[in-house]
């Protein structure tokens, strides 16, 4: 393994994010384990798995996490469907006050859009802000997306997720605001999952919910470190964390202390 991976919280302290490790280590979780029998991590080649599952498209039609009917417990945990949560109206009103509209659809995954509409020369025409959610999804998943809203509203420099022309085609010129990169997205998602995990833990949600979110943090941690931080070899990524999600190293350290790698 030639790419350094974070082994412990200390590796993610602000001063060490950029430094990284200079020697090879193995991944910090056992995610190298696969669904199949292949476990060899050396530089080897093998033939592809020739088994084709003809019905795999059906397996892709997985159900999103639907919210439960309202009960005192489902409301307390946030597993209730979002529309039935007592805070739903208040939160959506707050969202609107920040300039966001709420788009309810089953056609898209929940996410947040900050779209900059510009002229062909990159001059700003308007900003469109949307929180996309699935009808009937859990309130706690709405809270996750609201976490992204908070992130995008607090960046040191204005950051948009999309840049388009009036005709809807992408704008990829040099002008306009900073556009979210793949690396920044990996960092923000990891930060949001950490914040969410501790929120749910302190709330005392059901074990299976917490376990799933803990696994989600661990999975995203790998993507954060490689894609987001370039395995500690990107000073610009370190600066992005420092400027925008400066509590991330502390949250990461707390996660490792409480949950382990």
């Amino acid at each position, binding site marked *: *393994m*030639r*790419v350094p991976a974070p082994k412990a919280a200390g590796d993610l302290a602000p001063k060490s994010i950029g430094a990284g490790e*200079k020697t*090879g280590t*193995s991944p910090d979780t056992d*995610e*190298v384990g*696969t669904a*199949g*029998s*292949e476990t*060899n*991590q*050396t*530089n*080897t080649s*093998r*033939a*592809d*798995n020739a*088994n*084709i599952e003809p019905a*795999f498209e059906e397996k*892709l*039609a*997985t*159900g999103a996490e639907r919210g439960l009917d309202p009960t005192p417990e489902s409301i307390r945990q946030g597993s209730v469907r979002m529309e039935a949560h007592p805070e739903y109206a208040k939160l959506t009103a707050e969202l609107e006050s920040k300039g966001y509209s709420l788009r309810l659809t089953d056609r*898209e*995954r*929940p*996410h947040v*859009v900050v*779209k900059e509409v510009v002229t062909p020369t990159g001059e700003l025409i308007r900003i469109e802000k949307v929180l996309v959610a699935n009808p009937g999804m*859990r309130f706690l*998943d709405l809270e*996750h997306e609201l976490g992204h809203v908070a992130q995008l509203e607090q960046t040191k420099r204005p950051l*948009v*997720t*999309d*840049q388009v022309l009036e005709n809807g*085609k*992408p704008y*990829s010129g040099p002008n306009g605001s900073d*556009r*979210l*990169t*793949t690396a920044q*997205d990996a960092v923000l998602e990891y930060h949001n999952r950490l914040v*969410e995990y501790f929120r749910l833990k302190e709330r005392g949600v059901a074990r299976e919910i917490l376990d799933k979110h803990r*696994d989600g943090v*661990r*999975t995203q941690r*790998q993507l954060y470190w*490689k*894609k987001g931080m*370039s*395995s500690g*070899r*990107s000073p610009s990524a370190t600066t992005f964390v420092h400027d925008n999600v400066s509590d991330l190293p502390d949250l990461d350290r707390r996660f490792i202390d409480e949950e382990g790698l």
Partner: protein
Amino acid sequence: MKPARSHELSVGVWPVQRDHSGAGASLYNGIYTVTLNGTVQLDVIPQVDRSPPWPPVLPDNVDLCTTPDEARRITLLLARYAITPASQDSVEIVDDVTIFDINGATFAQLSTELEVIAGVMTGVHDSVDFSELQARAPVFERFLRERFLVSDRILPPDLAMLGR
């Protein structure tokens, strides 16, 4: 955590050069990050220089990348799954990166398809539905269906996000 999508697989195709600015952006020309269901990423990387040292080592500062070869090696090392052109179809494991080698002619077709799709992407979260690929990117659709999505190299958390 983001719930899995309820209908079908979403496929984002993002040209990595758009993550970079100035003269450095062109170093990443032809490299695409494909994101499935908003979470599972595989990087499509043109011909990677495999001369020693191989496996390559990340430079101390990836921000100072100066050549296309270096950009491709960096992208490969930071990937979880990658697609590269090769003399024949195979799967190669380099460190913790699973590389799907596909023959050069197929890779060229696939890259052309991805270039078209990437041309309409407005941001890193933008995507098309998997069902659209059959008409718009048949070579890539077939790769996903016959090689990637059924591979036993897909990690369990990624399998879950793919609905498998």
